[in-house]
């Protein structure tokens, strides 16, 4: 358990010092900044569409850190050293995902407050959006680590990562956008269920990918 926490805090430290933490946040806020320029300052229109745009931006932002999640550790031999110490691949993946939730999901949630202000989202919608994203981001973190483990070392890994993540994340996006409707209750429950299933399965999928990629 102590080792698990050490690995999680290492993930957060690497994201913080390596700039990996800021890239998705800046991308996310940039989308929120640019969107009103395209639609014009129509408050009603922005209120109606802004939440959906932030969902798309959050999903695409999760693509950005993929390349640095697994590959550097595999090349540096960190994953090998953990395996020699008796860590199962699933436990390594779980620590990576937990670290990524802190280094990606939490900053993006905080950035949502800023982004929704830039778009001019009504306050009620902001709370719904925050709840929805808080449910969905752990699943996106799990998906990112899984895809990072699958594509680590392949040529064109980032393009492939996009191809893999987008279809897998579509259920999250559909239910997530559904929560922005007049009555978010059902969509929120479905979103919670989908995210929970994805977040719970991802350490096993990523662990299997780590094992397959070891040579």
């Amino acid at each position, binding site marked *: 358990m*102590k*080792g698990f926490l*050490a690995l999680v805090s*290492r993930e957060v430290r*690497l994201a913080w*010092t*390596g700039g990996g933490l800021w890239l998705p946040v800046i991308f996310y806020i940039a989308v929120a900044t640019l969107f009103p320029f395209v639609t014009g300052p129509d408050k009603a229109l922005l209120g109606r569409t802004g939440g959906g745009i932030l969902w798309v931006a959050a999903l695409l932002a999760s693509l950005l850190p993929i390349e640095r999640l697994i590959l550097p550790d595999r*090349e*540096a*031999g*960190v994953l*090998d*050293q*953990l*395996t*020699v*110490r008796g860590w199962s691949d699933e436990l390594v993946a779980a620590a990576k995902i937990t670290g990524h939730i802190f280094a990606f999901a939490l900053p993006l949630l905080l950035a949502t407050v800023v982004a929704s202000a830039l778009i001019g989202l009504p306050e009620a919608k902001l709370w719904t959006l925050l709840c929805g994203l808080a449910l969905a981001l752990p699943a996106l973190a799990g998906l990112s680590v899984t895809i990072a483990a699958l594509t680590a070392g392949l040529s064109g890994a980032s393009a492939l990562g996009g191809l893999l993540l987008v279809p897998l994340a579509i259920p999250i996006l559909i239910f997530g956008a559904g929560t922005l409707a007049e009555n978010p209750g059902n969509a929120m429950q479905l979103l919670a269920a989908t995210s929970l299933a994805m977040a719970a399965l991802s350490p096993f999928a990523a662990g299997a990918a780590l094992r397959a990629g*070891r*040579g």
Partner: protein
Amino acid sequence: MSPRQAYSPAVALENVAVIRGNRLVLNGFSLAASVGDIVWIRGANGSGKSTLLRLIAGLLPKTSGQMKIEGRLALADENAALDPNLPLEKALNFWAEMDGAAPDIREAALIAMDLVPLADVPIRYLSSGQRKRVNLSRLFASHASIWLLDEPYNGLDSANTARLDAALLRHSNSGGIALVAAHQSPSINVAQSILLDPQSTAV
């Protein structure tokens, strides 16, 4: 650095075969090492020295045969596995905490490879020989009774080669096992020396 094993370490391989990328790298390989043994594994490039160490380390699956390992393992290969931006001592401490090494053991491991003067230098500024020493120092601090060393002498100058040999000797005297894959012979008495033949049988 004295491994206080609850039981004596042992490595036993019997008739092991490993297939890697459609090539039979090890075939009918047997090895038995027990308390205090230093085993020198030699062979031409591509003869399967690293494959053998990775197999024992649990990083590669065996295709057939029996393998029994008793005792904790530590591996030092060509990968430093240290965060490039951290100062040497902090980078090592990450692993020392994973291994549960006490401060005096960490200190002794630093001294053993003469790394104390470099303790504050970030890993990315170290030369490849210095990195190798850090890698070895982690192995010394790991508390493991079975050491797996892949080309440990590469990049070491004569003073540090002697330090490594001294550490190997101490490890052996305290009952540990060391498997050393190297072109150069360790300058201490080795219990066994195993020559690997290059196998390139396609399967």
